[in-house]
Structure formats: structure tokens, C-alpha cells
């Protein structure tokens, strides 16, 4: 199905939004590079009717816990029920990070857009990292 089956001429929507199945995303995702210096892992969980993502930044001896942020889910096509990507926004005070993600062949690709708000002179920068599903939802809860 392409988008034209769901939208009329000029892009006017006549379909209505449906709730997505998050099961393919829930759980823990670990960086494929075990020497990564960016994001070490992410954990997606279902809290009530909301999906939240908890990010752990690479650090030593322990990763840095960014805390949780709401994750918004997306399917590959407008008619599909299975969520295969999510976005989230993390306001961490001294910096804020947009995460735009998608799954390809079992790999979660995480694109990050970082802005520093602390006057440190660090540039806004782009990152792209790859994650495998290290634990499914049931194992995380």
C-alpha cells in the first residue's frame, strides 16, 4: 500500500489514526559497538498507555543514566499496525537531544541531534549508532 490509498487529492486525510503495536521495539537495545562512546543502550518500556525510552550514555565505570522520556511510535506505512520506529526528545538541562530511530533487518538505527545549552563551546552535532535487541520486553520488566 502506498500513501495514496489513505490520502485524497492534495493530501487531505480521510483516514483516522490507529494505535500501534509496540512489541517489536519494547525491551533493551545495546550498541553493536561495545567500545561506543555515545549511547551505550536504550530500554523501551510500556507505562500505562505510554511508551517510554530510558537512555544510558557510554561512561566508565558505569553508563550515565539520562532518565526516561516519552517515545512516539511510527509504522513503516500508514496502514500498518506494527511500530518499527520511534522518536524522543531528551531535555537534560545543559544539553538537549533529539533521537530519531528506525529498525532495519533487526538493527535499531538511532540518529541523534545534540544541542549544548551550557555555553561550553561544544558544537551541536549529529550522530548515528546501531543497536541490537539484547533483551525483550518480558526480560526487562
Amino acid at each position, binding site marked *: 500500500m502506498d500513501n495514496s490509498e489513505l490520502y485524497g487529492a492534495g493530501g487531505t486525510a480521510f483516514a483516522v489514526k490507529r494505535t500501534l503495536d509496540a512489541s517489536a521495539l519494547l525491551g533493551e537495545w545495546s550498541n553493536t559497538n561495545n567500545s561506543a562512546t555515545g549511547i551505550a543502550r536504550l530500554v523501551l518500556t510500556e507505562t500505562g498507555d505510554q511508551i517510554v525510552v530510558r537512555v544510558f550514555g*557510554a561512561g566508565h565505570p558505569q553508563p550515565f543514566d539520562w532518565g526516561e522520556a516519552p517515545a512516539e511510535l511510527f509504522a513503516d506505512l500508514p496502514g500498518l499496525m506494527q511500530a518499527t520506529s520511534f522518536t524522543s526528545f531528551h531535555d537534560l538541562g545543559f544539553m538537549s537531544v*533529539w533521537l530519531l530511530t528506525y529498525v532495519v533487518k533487526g538493527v535499531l538505527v538511532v540518529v541523534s541531534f545534540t544541542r549544548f545549552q551550557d555555553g561550553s563551546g561544544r558544537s551541536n552535532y549529529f550522530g548515528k549508532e546501531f543497536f541490537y535487541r539484547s533483551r525483550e520486553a518480558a526480560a526487562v520488566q
Partner: protein
Amino acid sequence: MKYLRAQDHLENSIAAVPGALSPSDFSGTWFNTNTQTPGVTRVTCRAEGNTLRIRLEGNGSSEPSDWGEVTPDLLCAANIQGGPAMSFVTSFDLGFKQVQVGANLNQGLLVIATYHRLQNDSGAGASNYFAREFFHRADQS
């Protein structure tokens, strides 16, 4: 200097100069590499100093022909030391949906990920969806 990822911990001597991001590498007209796309067909970028203006166009059927022109929420360099902008995050409000856009330059291509958030959530039908498309410069067609 506060940080929540190992790669964000920099010595002050190598930190970037704030405000040094130039968006000029985006300037010009970009066409979708897939001429049959049901999504975005053309992207036009205008750099005015350090400000970037972006216009997206669809085929007028499955997507609106003109999404309007926006300024990115964030321009990013390839790394924390700064340099030319090579990615951005922005969003379009098309009325019946809001679209978050993440884009980056890679190997001469403009890679654009779009996250479509439908505004009508009153029942079953379409779902929020994701698309990733590739654009080449107009003068290379």
C-alpha cells in the same frame, strides 16, 4: 564541563567556536532518487548567512504539492568540534498531520527521514508512519 556520554567530554582547548555552523552545503535543489516516490519529490534549501530555509514538495496526490518553507529547529555539525552544518531537524505542520524531519548529508546525497504524526486520533484507520528517502542535487540529474 558536564557530560552524559563519554564522547561529550572535551578539553576546552579543542571545543568549537559557538555559532560557527554554516548551512551552505545544503544550498540548492534536491530531487528524490526514486522518481516514482509517493512521498517527497523535491527539496529546496536556501542559506541566508547562517540561517537555512527548507521547502519540501510532494506529488500533490499522496502528499501535498507544497509543504511550505521552514527554518530548522537545529543545525548540526558532523562532530562536537563544529565545522559546516551537515544535518538538521525541523518540522512541518500540514494541518491534517505534523511531520518531524531529520536530514543529513552523506556521500553527496541528502538523506531525509520523515515521521508523520496524524492529527485525527478518533478511531481505527491509518497510523503514524515513518519514511526515509534519498535526494540528489538537481545539477546531477
